[in-house]
């Protein structure tokens, strides 16, 4: 499992476009949005979180689009299956690598931008925690979408899996509100962590079965 994680990290490190692209787009969106509308700082503080949440959703969507398609197209997926006879560990390692290399930096960027928009220093770690958990859930969901339509252009499947991501977004919104207006942060973050654990346990099994079906 750790070996797969390092192999995936090795691959991702050399695919600059796959990890740097989504991060740069996120930064661009977060900078461009306040510049493109004329609002007071007071109003911006109130709704800037929505921009962070929506950009997190869209960038997760973008980052996982080709998570399996490259290995499927060049035949690596077949070789991995012959080696392991199952995709579970491979899928889990792949998702965790993407979360580590793209999801966590996204959460850091989101936290920094929320600080720049009026969140106090003490609240920034809370934002980081809920954004990190959200990326974990979103990457699992969109990885499933990507696996679903791996041979027909992954974007189609990722779009189809979008409704599954909405509960995570609702939870994230609730978490953000607790940070902004106080109260119940621990409860909401614990709920999100629970959902993330369940998703992380189930999704790789479903994705493994989906990938095996596509190999056939």
């Amino acid at each position, binding site marked *: 499992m750790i070996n797969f994680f390092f192999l995936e990290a090795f691959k991702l490190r*050399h695919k600059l476009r796959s990890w740097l692209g989504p991060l740069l787009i996120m930064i661009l969106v977060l900078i461009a949005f306040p510049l493109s509308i004329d609002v007071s700082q007071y109003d911006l503080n109130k709704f800037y979180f929505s921009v962070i949440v929506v950009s997190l959703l869209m960038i997760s969507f973008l980052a996982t689009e080709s998570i399996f398609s490259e290995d499927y197209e*060049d*035949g*690596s997926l077949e*070789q991995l299956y*012959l080696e392991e006879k199952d995709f579970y560990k491979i899928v889990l390692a792949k998702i965790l690598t993407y979360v580590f290399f793209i999801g966590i930096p996204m959460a850091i960027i989101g936290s920094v931008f929320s600080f720049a928009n009026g969140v106090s220093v003490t609240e920034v770690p809370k934002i980081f925690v809920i954004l990190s958990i959200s990326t974990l859930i979103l990457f699992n969901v969109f990885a499933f979408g990507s696996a679903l339509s791996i041979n027909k252009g992954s974007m189609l499947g990722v779009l189809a899996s979008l409704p599954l991501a909405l509960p995570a977004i609702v939870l994230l919104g609730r978490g953000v509100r607790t940070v902004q207006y106080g109260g119940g942060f621990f409860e909401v973050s614990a709920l999100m962590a629970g959902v993330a654990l369940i998703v992380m346990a189930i999704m790789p099994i479903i994705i493994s079965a989906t990938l095996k079906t596509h190999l*056939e």
Partner: protein
Amino acid sequence: MQLVTANNLGYSINEKRLFHNLTFSLNSGCGLHIKGGNGSGKSTLLRIILELTSPSKGRVDYCKPNLQVSYLGHKNAIKHYLTPMQNLELIFKSSALPEAIKWMHTLGLNKVQDELTANLSFGQQKKLALIRIFASQSDLIILDEPFVGLDNTSRDLLNEFLQKKLASDSSLILTSHIEPNVLCSELVLTDNADD
């Protein structure tokens, strides 16, 4: 010693029957050359033997537990954005890497080891992919058209390697329109499965 047995294998796709009632076995140290025209189901049969594809009928049994299988299909399973050396680092564990690097030198790929694989010729990419077979310790080697794109020297090298592997009790199943210089039994798939 029997290594693989196939019993009453059949495969149909879109109501077209590719083959049916196919029964054969393969012993250690033996080779099997699967022949047939385009679309006769050679690659599908290999994938069924590898358990990548489920047969419509029948089954394949491996007689040896923990059988080490190495396979090279139509897809090379190499990364175009990595150099040949990085590809080998990705494929092989550190213990097998020196052997893989030795093969890279033998195949003349050391001259391009720091170039991106995307910039290599078709034949060079095929040779890089074949190192997966050359440097692996396996009981069964399964190859799908391994000679395509190779120059005469590399073909001779591959034939020599396969002869040595058969002599050392490994087994071989391959499909090839280019006649291999290896002693193999032949299995011919006809275009009409009812034959």
